[in-house]
């Protein structure tokens, strides 16, 4: 098994296994230092970010909202974790010169052309639908896919199967090239 891939990255098996170690260390560290076992996750942070932004314009509306109250609008462990992902990716990509400004990814360009507007619309509306789904399911590929599967949670198996199963069907339809 090669430790480096053709594009200069690490073997996904190696990088993934290290994430497994990180997940275990992180649960241990949060339990010891915060008194509560925190598992890796990302999507609740988007609720808190939405609440923090909305608060600047409609503070009463956020205070009165049942869901914001339930999830607690504050900069917590997971919020900083998600911000950390940005810096970690930046450091890693600068260290091996794989940082690249990209406005339209190749697969998208092949199907929908070089328009940044189309790509932005796809990312934006896809993002809305995906986040409504992730909050309803109470997790994303981090919370269900990684943390839930590690714990052998029933909901994680079902959620991951649906994430991917639906994704395969929609991707096949969405990126199918018109027969010319």
């Amino acid at each position, binding site marked *: 098994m090669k430790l480096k891939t053709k594009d200069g990255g690490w073997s996904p098996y190696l990088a993934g296994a290290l994430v497994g170690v990180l997940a275990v260390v992180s649960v241990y560290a949060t339990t010891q230092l915060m008194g509560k076992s925190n598992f890796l996750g990302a999507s609740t942070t988007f609720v808190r970010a939405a609440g923090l932004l909305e608060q600047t314009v409609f503070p009463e509306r956020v205070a009165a909202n049942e869901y914001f109250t339930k999830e607690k609008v504050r900069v917590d462990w997971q919020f900083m974790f998600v911000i950390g992902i940005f810096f970690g990716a930046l450091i890693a990509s600068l260290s091996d010169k794989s940082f690249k400004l990209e406005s339209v990814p190749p697969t998208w360009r092949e199907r929908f052309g070089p328009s940044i507007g189309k790509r932005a619309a*796809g990312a934006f509306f896809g993002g809305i639908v995906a986040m409504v789904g992730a909050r309803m399911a109470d997790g994303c590929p981090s919370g269900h896919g990684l943390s839930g599967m590690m714990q052998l949670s029933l909901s994680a198996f079902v959620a991951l199967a649906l994430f991917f199963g639906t994704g395969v069907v929609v991707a096949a339809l969405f990126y199918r090239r018109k027969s010319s």
Partner: protein
Amino acid sequence: MSIEQILGLLTGIAFGFLLQKGRVLRFEKQVGAMLLKDMTIFKFMLSAILVGMVGIHILAGAEIISLSHKAMNLGAVLVGGALFGCGWAVMGYCPGTSIGAVGEGRWHAVFAVAGMVVGAALYAELYPFFKSTILAWKDFGKIGMAEVLGVSPWLIIPVFWAVVICIFVWFERRKL
């Protein structure tokens, strides 16, 4: 910053670093998996699960940490999971990887991040409606596979490892 915030930030930096080195932050890798052409994200994810699963169950068995299952709410997981899959395919990122993708310069992911913040606000508005409809169908509670099957997790883990190793071998043979 509090200890909680510093800990979160450091863990996130390490996670983002590994996501980037594993090359799983790319739109091409995420959509590539959904088009069944490139299984990099599954090699990465399943490797993390194999290692993490053993460590988590050792710590939980020794009562050093406590497990935190997410509820198996039927409507929530089925409808929410399907909605997520639809959005994921078009967006080409999941919530965690979208932020990392911006970090490695794929700046179109900022539109995905913005969409997800709007989606979260929308969900907060619709929550009372969902709570009385989809979320109210049937809740099996916060349960794990061990309870469902009525066996020790240490019986499930070796089987899980064996299945995943077979999947890895198949990926490599098919050059996925």
